[in-house]
């Protein structure tokens, strides 16, 4: 079996999830006696291709074109469909980034294939690859298999594999092979413009050692002062999952998760947060996680060190008082 890992860079800088996916591919190759190649796409990215070539890969495919300097779904789909048709991998792996979500399902469909996205792992059973992904916002997981003939397309969730486990090439460097693609300006229908960040956030939650985060369980904006009182008693910052910021109950700069900030505080106290993956990726690195939720099956309890199944409106004031007394 031939595995091809499509790496991701923007303006010549790696998306580190590329190496997590490479680690997944190397592990999979060991299990299935497959070979792993890596693909680098863009313009002026030969140095990045050289970097991947030092990893344990059979070959690096370097796909460069003036029209691939900035990412566009059309440009990537046209170029990658040509490369995949020529290179004939059995399995194409991607990191499950926002960019991959934007083009990979269409790329697979162009080749008449399907994609299993956002996988958290895989198993190799009886000569068959089984991909594991979450469903129902992380409340359940699912085993998914490919039904049609190769190539198969799959992406791995950020954090599902460890990039530091990528093994180096055992005899120096793999060969970097430039692949030319046929791409014309009129095939690219969208025009990417400026990349930007919103006005600099006044709070840097990444530096906060103690965080009290609220989710849907807070129910109404009137209840937020209770959580703020708890944060104050703890001496921590208040933060929230996406729905709370979508509602405008707390500013977007207080949002933790894939679209907000990624934090790794000493203590993360999750109040009424179910633990959907979009939130969990932003806080699972916390040293100690406390979850309080009325639903004992909430996925947040899978990663919590301490759990309380109960009503946050009863526990918040009691905990605020206990923290004040403990000072």
């Amino acid at each position: 079996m031939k595995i091809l890992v499509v790496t991701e860079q923007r303006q010549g800088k790696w998306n580190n999830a590329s190496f997590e996916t490479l680690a997944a591919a190397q592990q999979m190759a060991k299990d299935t006696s497959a070979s792993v190649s890596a693909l680098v796409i863009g313009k002026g990215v030969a140095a990045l291709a050289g970097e991947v070539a030092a990893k344990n890969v059979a070959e690096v495919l370097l796909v460069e074109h003036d029209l691939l300097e900035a990412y566009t779904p059309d440009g990537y789909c046209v170029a990658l469909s040509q490369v995949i048709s020529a290179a004939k991998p059995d399995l194409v792996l991607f990191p499950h980034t926002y960019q991959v979500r934007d083009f990979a399902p269409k790329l697979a469909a162009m080749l008449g294939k399907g994609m299993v996205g956002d996988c958290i792992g895989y198993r190799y059973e009886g000569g068959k690859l089984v991909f594991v992904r979450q469903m129902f916002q992380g409340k359940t997981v699912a085993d998914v298999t490919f039904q049609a003939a190769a190539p198969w397309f799959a992406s791995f969730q950020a954090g599902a594999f460890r990039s530091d486990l990528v093994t180096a090439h055992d005899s120096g460097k793999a060969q970097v092979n430039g692949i030319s693609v046929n791409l014309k300006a009129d095939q690219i229908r969208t025009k990417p413009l400026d990349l930007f960040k919103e006005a600099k956030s006044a709070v840097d939650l990444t530096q906060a050692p103690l965080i009290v985060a609220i989710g849907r369980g807070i129910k109404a904006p009137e209840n937020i002062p209770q959580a703020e009182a708890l944060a104050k008693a703890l001496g921590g910052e208040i933060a929230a999952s996406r729905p709370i910021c979508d509602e405008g109950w707390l500013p977007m700069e207080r949002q933790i998760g894939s679209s907000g900030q990624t934090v790794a505080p000493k203590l993360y106290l999750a109040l009424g947060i179910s633990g959907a993956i979009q939130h969990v990726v932003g806080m699972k690195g916390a040293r100690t996680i406390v979850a309080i939720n009325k639903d004992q099956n909430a996925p947040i309890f899978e990663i919590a060190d301490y759990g309380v199944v109960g009503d946050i409106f009863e526990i918040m004031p009691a905990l605020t008082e206990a923290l004040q007394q403990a000072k």
Partner: protein
Amino acid sequence: MNIIVCIKQVPAKDAPLAIAGNWIRESDIGFEMNEPDSYALEEALRLKEKHGGEVVALSMGPERVKQTIKEALAKGADRGIHIADDQFAQLDPLGSANSLAAAIKRQSCDLVLTGLQSDDHGFGQTGVLLAGLLDWPHATIIMAIEVQDRKMRLKRELEAGWFQHLECPLPAVLTIQSGINKVRYATLKGIMAAKKKEIVVITRESLSASSEPTQRVEKIYLPAKSKKTEFITGTPKEVATKLVEKLKFEARVI
């Protein structure tokens, strides 16, 4: 501007999930409009208010899906299309997109909107696949739309607080990020008006858009715990006292 919004009906957020093979037992639970799709619907209604045209709510699934289409009509969509299919939950992403695309091709439409993913399967592929099947340009995870002269200027969300502007011609497919707008509630007037609005039912078979499944969900199950959680029980006051002790002397984080 004519807009079709693809809306999925999903199990209610607080519904207790009873796993049954590769899906869930549907008999005892409630269903609701997929939340990301409600933002897509709201965005469509706002675009219509600004630029005119019609908003069509398109949904696929068994009979119960009509309720969600009615909700969209009550909020202001002009008409509904129901692709009737009792086996909808078993379709792979490409299978769903093929049927939706076939139904969309029968309409005169400038823009297709979807939420960025569904809260049940969470494949997050429908919008992108539709763009491919319709051969239209697309953009995903959109946070702002401005339309001018058959062209859109869009704000697309990237990871870790980054955004990008881009231009996209019409017709096109966009997937909408949650939080792009404040979703409206249906008014009593809207609910009454919806009763007179049309919902066209077409069976999925009649679209002749079936495709061989590319993938199959074999089974679903509860996740294994990655950490051993110590559950603290008692009255709220007892829980609070125990928790503070644990954090102070065991975890040593406060």
